């Protein structure tokens, strides 16, 4: 087992695996989480060891596995100089932050949660820098947004922590999505998402028509992550996070992810004018703006945040220069900034921890309370200001040099060194403020506690970092040159340019710029109060958080408004949208083609009987709509419409339809009457004329369209499959009633579904009516008492007389169905009506006492009969529902047919009876219950 074959993914994944462990360890004791986290970090580091020398040997280690081949997504990791540098930064500074955080967090903070989040973040960062596949890189990229959300909102009870976290998530998340789009485009331009291919395809990319789109999208990701103007505003608000988080995320890691991408994609994207303007422009502006703003922040962390923004701008600007030496300077400054900024954040945390405040107007003269810390802070801040013998000085000199070389003499380019110097001036000024305003400048004001040195272990990480600042500043060639060299080489995808990290480059323009910056910077600092006043009076205060929250709120209101524009929670609204869409769909579909509306089939001549029936239907249906306010009347009219429609079916040779329609009609009237009892008898008039117009327009256009569609079809010839049914009905299905044979045989499966629907209706209604109570009206619509005669005897007697007759007719209709109009449905409905007539005439109690069948079980038996009929065929290795029939000849009785379809039809019959009776009787019982209620009230 060769570790070198799969150690890279482990480096990134181990922190994720360790996160739950750290969370769990919190149950043991307060330190356990921290030690677990540290251990996990060390293990990750351990897995780096086998490969750590490879970049120095000029090798790129790639480990990849197939993951989502159709996307070109591989589970692929890459270790080269650049990744190595970042892995080391992430892990080593991570270790220091863990140590620091152990002592920083207060007893009431959850250690488990903190270190779990921190480890997940660490893993995400490692994933970014180690990814070989760009999609995978984006995955980790977005993970850093998510985990940083968790870390920033760690103190979730604080409003500003929640807001800051959400703002960071929104901005960096948005950038991540843009980057995703850019990466997808990039991958499709190159034909691969793997860095190896992408980095080799720089020319192809730069010449592609989508280059600019890709560049902008990816830069959106970079700029948001690295807090470049105009996306910088989230970073100061992310300072609501615990300071270790800031020290880690906002100095060394997360914000550097964007910079990392610049370094990573440098060979693929850089070198164009667009790159120069976009990257350089953003960097320049950000650098100056950040430096300027930092000076005016009274909050220590605020100062550091804007300082970070400024330094990130500096690095971005360097990449914007597109030269190899600028890249060297950029990467060098990445290292330096990480060390001094992390230590400064830690110092700020110590001060906050000890003073209970980070306000520089209150915190003064700390030198005598915490001299050790003060020394550390002064060194680190000097590094930040670019004081010689410290690491910041070296990279800053390189930066100045690049700024100078970037000018080609034109007035515009001369602005570059000028602006750079201005940035440096403010940088010196705020660094000075960090030192002077905190550790000197008199006595503290209004602190709640007396500050003193923090616990020893809280200072150790700072010690180490500050030593590094010093070390690098004094002996850069020994300490950083090797790693810097391989990192640059990896970033440029070529041999690194010759560079020298000498402390003394002679007396040159950059050095002059440094001196100017120092001098004016000091001057600016000591005139700061005037400046503060000027700043307060003349510049508007823009609080990004307020703006962001306003934007968010505006978005909330706007989305709600747009949402409600369509979704008003109103059925009529929803229904009219549906109908309108249907109308438009038909029209749109039709007019797309140049087809005539009508065909040339010969129409049959008008006969006046049909005309009369048609007139009847037209009048009644319109009246039904017009008179719908009087509900009972409209119900009667609907009954008439149904009757005439069934007459029409008879007229047009569809007796089965007529029979079914008639029977359903009767049942429907009873059903609706049962329900109407509990509803208002009258629908109030509507007053909304606009809606009436809309509804009428909609219904008329629907009617006209349906009419035209019907005509369009009826006026055309067609070649239906029905001839098959007519020819096979008798020989294949054993019946002469083709419609019935279709129902029970050719398309028996439809019928099975249909009886299931009916059964479901029964079950559903049964369930709905369970425990439903509605007050039964005591008087009718005109205020009359109900009749005292619930079961008129004449009706009782005669319906009882009819009962056996109806059942007989039901059997008759059932048995002949296969050959003549009729069948299980109609028979079922007749039988159901027979039963219901008994309920109607005699009442539920009386009738239930005589019909002992449980309708649930009748339905179940019906379904069973139908399904079993189908299954028997399967047992005989025919498909489900295959029917068979035979003719028997019995003595005397003669020849008669036995068809399996009859068993199926019996199932239909039973379900129809069961469901219909169940529905109506359950509905009837509703009033039954109400009547009992009413009677109880009487006595």
């Amino acid at each position: 087992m060769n570790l070198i074959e799969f150690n890279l993914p482990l480096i990134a994944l181990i922190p994720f695996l360790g996160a739950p462990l750290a969370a769990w360890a919190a149950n043991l004791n307060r330190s356990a989480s921290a030690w677990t986290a540290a251990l996990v970090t060390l293990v990750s580091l351990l897995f780096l060891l086998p490969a750590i020398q490879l970049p120095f040997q000029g090798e790129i280690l790639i480990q990849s596995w197939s993951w989502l081949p159709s996307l070109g997504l591989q589970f692929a990791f890459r270790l080269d100089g650049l990744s190595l540098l970042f892995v080391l930064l992430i892990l080593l500074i991570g270790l220091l932050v863990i140590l620091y955080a152990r002592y920083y967090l207060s007893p009431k903070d959850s250690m488990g949660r903190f270190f779990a989040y921190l480890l997940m973040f660490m893993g995400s960062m490692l994933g970014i820098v180690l990814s070989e596949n760009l999609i995978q890189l984006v995955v980790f990229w977005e993970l850093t947004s998510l985990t940083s959300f968790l870390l920033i909102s760690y103190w979730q009870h604080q409003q500003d922590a929640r807001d800051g976290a959400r703002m960071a998530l929104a901005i960096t998340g948005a950038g991540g999505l843009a980057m995703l789009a850019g990466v997808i485009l990039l991958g499709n331009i190159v034909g691969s998402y793997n860095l190896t291919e992408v980095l080799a395809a720089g020319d192809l990319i730069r010449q592609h028509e989508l280059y600019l789109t890709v560049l902008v999208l990816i830069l959106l990701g970079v700029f948001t992550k690295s807090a470049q103007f105009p996306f910088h505003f989230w970073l100061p608000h992310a300072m609501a996070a615990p300071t270790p988080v800031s020290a880690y995320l906002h100095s060394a890691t997360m914000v550097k992810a964007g910079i990392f991408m610049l370094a990573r994609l440098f060979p693929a994207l850089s070198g164009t004018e667009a790159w120069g303007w976009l990257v350089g422009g953003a960097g320049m502006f950000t650098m100056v703006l950040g430096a300027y703003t930092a000076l005016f922040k009274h909050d220590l962390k605020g100062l550091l945040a804007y300082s970070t923004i400024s330094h990130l701008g500096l690095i971005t600007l360097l990449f914007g220069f597109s030269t190899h030496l600028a890249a060297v300077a950029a990467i060098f400054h990445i290292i330096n900034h990480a060390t001094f900024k992390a230590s400064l954040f830690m110092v700020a945390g110590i001060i906050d921890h000890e003073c209970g405040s980070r306000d520089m107007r209150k915190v003064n003269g700390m030198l005598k309370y915490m001299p050790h810390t003060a020394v550390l802070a002064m060194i680190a801040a000097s590094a930040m200001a670019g004081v010689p013998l410290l690491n910041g000085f070296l990279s800053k000199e390189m930066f100045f040099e690049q700024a100078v070389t970037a000018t080609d003499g034109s007035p515009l380019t001369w602005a570059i060194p000028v602006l750079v110097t201005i940035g440096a001036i403010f940088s010196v000024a705020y660094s000075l403020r960090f030192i002077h305003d905190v550790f000197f400048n008199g006595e503290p004001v209004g602190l709640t506690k007396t500050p003193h040195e923090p616990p020893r272990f809280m200072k150790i990480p700072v010690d180490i970092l500050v030593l590094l600042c010093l070390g690098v500043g004094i002996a850069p060639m020994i300490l950083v040159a090797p790693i810097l060299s391989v990192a640059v080489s990896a970033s440029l995808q070529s041999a690194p340019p010759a560079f020298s990290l000498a402390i003394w480059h002679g007396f040159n323009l950059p050095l002059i710029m440094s001196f100017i910056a120092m001098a004016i910077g000091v001057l600016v600092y000591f005139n700061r109060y005037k400046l503060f006043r000027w700043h307060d009076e003349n510049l508007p205060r823009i609080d990004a958080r307020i703006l962001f929250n306003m934007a968010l709120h505006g978005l909330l209101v706007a989305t709600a408004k747009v949402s409600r524009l369509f979704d008003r929670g109103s059925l009529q609204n929803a229904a009219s949208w549906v109908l309108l869409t249907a109308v438009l769909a038909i029209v749109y579909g039709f007019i797309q083609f140049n087809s005539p509306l009508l065909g040339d089939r010969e129409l049959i001549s008008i006969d006046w009987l049909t005309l009369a029936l048609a007139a009847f239907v037209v009048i009644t249906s319109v009246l039904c709509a017009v008179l719908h306010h009087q509900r009972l009347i409209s119900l009667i009219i609907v009954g008439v419409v149904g009757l005439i429609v069934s007459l029409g079916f008879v007229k047009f040779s569809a007796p089965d339809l007529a029979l079914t329609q008639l029977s359903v009609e009767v049942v429907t009237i009873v059903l609706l009457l049962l329900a109407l009892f509990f509803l208002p008898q009258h629908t109030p008039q509507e007053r909304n004329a606009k809606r009436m117009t809309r509804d009428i327009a909609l219904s008329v256009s629907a009617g006209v369209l349906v009419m035209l569609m019907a005509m369009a079809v009826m006026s055309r010839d067609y070649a239906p499959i029905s001839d098959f049914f007519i020819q096979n009905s008798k020989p294949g299905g054993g019946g002469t009633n083709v419609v019935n044979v279709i129902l029970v045989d050719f398309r028996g499966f439809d019928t099975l579904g249909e009886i299931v629907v009916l059964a479901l209706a029964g079950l559903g209604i049964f369930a709905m009516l369970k425990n439903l109570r509605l007050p039964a009206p005591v008087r009718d619509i005109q205020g009359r008492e109900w009749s005292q005669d619930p079961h008129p005897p004449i009706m009782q007697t005669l319906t009882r007389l009819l009962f056996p007759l109806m059942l007989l007719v039901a059997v008759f209709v059932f048995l002949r169905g296969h050959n003549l109009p009729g069948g299980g449905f109609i028979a079922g409905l007749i039988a159901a009506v027979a039963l219901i007539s008994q309920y109607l005439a005699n009442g539920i109690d009386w009738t239930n006492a005589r019909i002992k069948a449980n309708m649930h079980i009748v339905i179940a038996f019906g379904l069973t009969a139908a399904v079993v009929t189908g299954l028997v065929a399967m047992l005989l290795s025919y498909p489900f529902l295959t029917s068979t029939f035979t003719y028997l000849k019995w003595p005397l009785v003669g020849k008669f047919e036995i068809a399996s379809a009859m068993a199926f039809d019996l199932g239909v019959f039973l379900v129809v009876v069961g469901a219909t009776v169940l529905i109506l009787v359950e509905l009837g019982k509703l009033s039954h219950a109400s009547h009992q209620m009413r009677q109880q009230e009487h006595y």
Partner: protein
Amino acid sequence: MLDIILSILIMLGGFFTLVGSLGLFKLPDFYMRLHGPTKASTLGVGAVLIASAVYFSTSTDEVSLHEVLVTLFLFITAPVSAHLMAKAALHIRVRQDKRTLNKSDQ
């Protein structure tokens, strides 16, 4: 001959059906209108049914008597309907023609 009988029966049926509905149309109050359809119409239908029975008995070689059943069912159901409608009308006190004897409003 048969044709004539059939024609008479059919026209008679049509006529009585029409008369029933005419009554429904023009009689002045509900109770009076009730008479039309329950009787004139049933007779009309009866006549048509007899015509049908005769027609199908002669036009095919089998005797067709099942039309009788329609009449039978109608004779059972139509009066029940009429009774119940009248009962309902009495209950809700439908207007009665001013000529009505023994007005039944109590």
